[in-house]
């Protein structure tokens, strides 16, 4: 059966079947650090002293400063210039996915599913992160749904799994991130 005879779903599932969870990449741009924790807590309005106050954090179950657990994903973000190893899949333009093999996102684009929105995020924390922890990130495609009708328009849900390792090669956290690639509804003409 030639590629052109296959349905979009079949071609997408080939990517899911062939997907491998990549091993830990290079360390993220910065280790876990207090300035980034401060920016985060200021912006979120989080005054939990275990993140910001050395004296009080020392009295906590952690025995010292820790990073907010829900800050997990921030440590692997590429930043303004896209530096760092872990620009998330949902933020990649199709051309960045690979030249020889366009990848499932390019297939979705070709089929008209050109808009993307994040729908679910599930994070599991094995331990809290501490300033100085050096993280490495790996993972990959885990699932692609068939075409679904949604409030935004018809689309496919794409689930990626991300694993975070520390400097001792221990897994410290896992994350499942789901996005919807959809065909935007035509705006009603008035």
């Amino acid at each position, binding site marked *: 059966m030639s590629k052109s005879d296959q349905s979009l779903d079949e071609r997408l599932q080939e990517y899911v079947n062939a997907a491998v969870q990549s091993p830990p990449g290079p360390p993220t741009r910065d280790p876990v650090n207090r300035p980034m924790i401060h920016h985060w807590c200021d912006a*979120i*309005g989080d005054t939990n002293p275990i993140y910001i106050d050395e004296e009080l954090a020392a009295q906590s179950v952690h025995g010292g400063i820790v990073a*907010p657990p829900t800050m997990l*994903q921030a440590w692997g*973000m590429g930043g303004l210039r896209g530096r760092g190893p872990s620009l998330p899949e949902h933020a990649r333009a199709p051309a960045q996915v690979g030249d020889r093999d366009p990848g499932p996102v390019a297939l979705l684009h070709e089929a008209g599913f050109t808009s993307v929105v*994040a729908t*679910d995020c599930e*994070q599991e924390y094995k331990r809290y992160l501490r300033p100085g922890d050096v993280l490495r990130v790996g993972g990959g495609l885990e699932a692609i749904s068939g075409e679904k009708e949604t409030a935004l328009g018809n689309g496919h849900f794409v689930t990626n799994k991300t694993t975070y390792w520390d400097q001792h090669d221990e897994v410290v956290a896992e994350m499942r991130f789901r996005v919807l690639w959809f065909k935007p509804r035509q705006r009603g003409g008035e």
Partner: protein
Amino acid sequence: MKTLLPTRSFDDVNVGDELPELVIELTPTVIVSTAIASRDYQDVHHDRDLAQKKGSKDIFMNILSSNGFVGRYITDWTGPNAVLRSVKIRLGAPNYSYDTMRMTGVVESKEMVDGEGRVEIKIRGANQLGDHVKGTIDLVLPTDGAAP
């Protein structure tokens, strides 16, 4: 010397307990500062002109920050010694600038597992368009008699 505030005890928490509402005014400063603090520079989170060109009515909160507000909401209620084990969220209506998000939550279950006081909390954060976020948080609370 400063003293760490107490943490809600597993023994004092009951299924059905409601968390007090937390109201977040979604100013442009909140939307932009949280996006940048999470190192997410996608333009729809900080540039209203581009966000509108792409079909949004304004800039809107990124998912990393939604996670952050969920984490804050939980530990604002529990106190500092709660240990979060997992946070699972589903996103709905965007948190556009100039809207307000009202966060509510309820204790869904509690159970001693391997000597730990495990609690599951369900939360939602609603704005004027509907539910921005719904989530389930698993955490460990100290038990009476356990230090500290």
